[in-house]
């Protein structure tokens, strides 16, 4: 991992290139993370790719409910030569959940961005085929948001199985 000073240097370089891109840096338990503005995500990832972080390990979403902005998208980057990891995070509010898609530049993000869309409702502009991937295509709602109910069926025991008639009755 880049250590704390390395992280600050990277953040400074990115801010030099684009002043509004890096909003914050987080260094926690030896792991480095950059908080960037949503619109600057593809450009930031490209600049990090030039610095060596050429492998995208993961794209995943987080719901920060009740903090605003609520929906977060995290990109985990890996530098295989230096064995370095860095995390790029962005947050979008529910009212405007648009993040430019990085799929054209990083093909690995294809299915992963679809999953973030399916589970959280973040819309990736420029994604070639943004459909639901895990839930049925006509499902309504975004299940992994924190205010989506967990759901579930009442479990049938002998004491309540007669209350729910079987589908063939």
């Amino acid at each position, binding site marked *: 991992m880049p250590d704390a000073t390395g992280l600050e240097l990277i953040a400074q370089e990115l801010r030099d290139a684009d002043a509004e891109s890096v909003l914050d840096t987080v260094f926690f*338990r030896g792991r480095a993370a950059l908080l960037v503005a949503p619109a600057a995500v593809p450009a930031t990832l490209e600049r990090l790719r030039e610095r060596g972080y050429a492998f995208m390990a993961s794209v995943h979403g*987080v719901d920060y409910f009740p903090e605003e902005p609520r929906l977060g998208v995290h990109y985990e980057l890996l530098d295989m030569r230096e064995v370095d990891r860095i995390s790029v995070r962005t947050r979008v509010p529910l009212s405007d959940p648009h993040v430019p898609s990085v799929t054209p530049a990083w093909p690995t993000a294809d299915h992963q961005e679809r999953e973030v869309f399916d589970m959280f409702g973040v819309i990736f502009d420029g994604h070639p085929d943004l459909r639901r991937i*895990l839930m049925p295509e006509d499902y309504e709602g975004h299940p992994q948001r924190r205010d989506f109910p967990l759901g579930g069926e009442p479990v049938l025991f002998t004491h309540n199985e007669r209350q729910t008639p079987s589908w063939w009755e």
Partner: protein
Amino acid sequence: MSDVDTTRRDSLTPAIGYREMEQSVDVSHIAHPETEELLTINFGPHHPATHGVLRLLVTLEAEIVREIKPIIGYVHTGIEKTAEDKAYWKAIPVIERMDYLAYYFNAMAYCGAVETILDLEVPPRAQYLRVIHMELNRIMSHLVWLGTTALDLGAISMFWYCFRDREQILDLFEMSSGQRMHTRYFQVGGVFEDIPVGWEQKVRKFTSRMPTRVDEFQALLRKNEIALQRLRDVGVVDEQTLLDLGVTGPLLRATGNPWDLRKAEPYMSYDHFDFKIPVGTVGDNWDRMVVRMLEMKESVRIIEQALDGLPAGPYITDDRKYALPPRHELATSMEALIHHFKLVTEGFRVPPGEVYYPIESPRGEMGVFLRADGSSKPARVHMRDPSFVNLQAMKPMSEDLYIADFIATLGMLDPVLGGIDR
């Protein structure tokens, strides 16, 4: 699906609209000679050769696969959301059931993430025990892969041999933890309990025979003309395409890239052991198969070294705030009783933080992203499953293959749908 009459619209049959939405395969970009017609057929989700409920819309020109479109989600279980509802300790069984062939790895990645946020030290004995169990699980996962893939190729005898050896590993798991699969053995801070007397001898008996078994498997397939013809130079993808697609694990190592997290970013004292990383040269199906078989042998070496150097000591962390106290203390110590009560009912609290913890599972890089918000339940658990990302490599791997080769390539991809769908 072309003979389905989709003009009938009924309130009684709403499913037809849904099916139409998935029929969206655009074949205009596929160049094909005028005499041939492109046929799109549906492959799965119930199919004997897809490893699990994978559905593929395959566009064929005669018998050559031109385009595939995977549709997944048929075993989506909402594991990540269920884990948010449970205490950290109680989420371990839920998380284990994700990639159902590599359950120790699921638990390891999750426990590792929690331990990182807590800054908790895992005692050396627990680390070695974790390594032994993970490597046994790696061998077991590769055995199941080998058995089912050989079944797809038609070499049915391999299935019986591989499952015979798999039963021995499951016996070892049953002896150490009580369950064959999904053992809940890894806990935050160490392992659930110490290995019983006699387990080490049984593992040594197993590891003494395993390399010969792997040699037998190789002997069955290495000079088999049919296997060679079906697997050599089939499904070749170059390394850069795989890296762009985020593929890790034996698929990447078959192309010659020796990326293995056990060597590159050692965790759980993997750096104490001396083992090699098998890499391929060409990146075809044959290399993928041999890489996994040799990995089984390397895992045996790791297990033997771990058993030789197994340190004495506690099997779980001493920190009573996170690990249950031993039962004999409950009768004498008040603090132990209180800690036990609090841990079992509410669970321990984890200070706020976000961490991504990657490990090397049999299929590639398995990572767990954990966000803790200070309460006793995780706020977000995401599992970066290797099969989910590796599935994207199916497209370049299956370009211009015959259907039979396509099935073999799908087997060599080693998808585990539990991990893909979570």
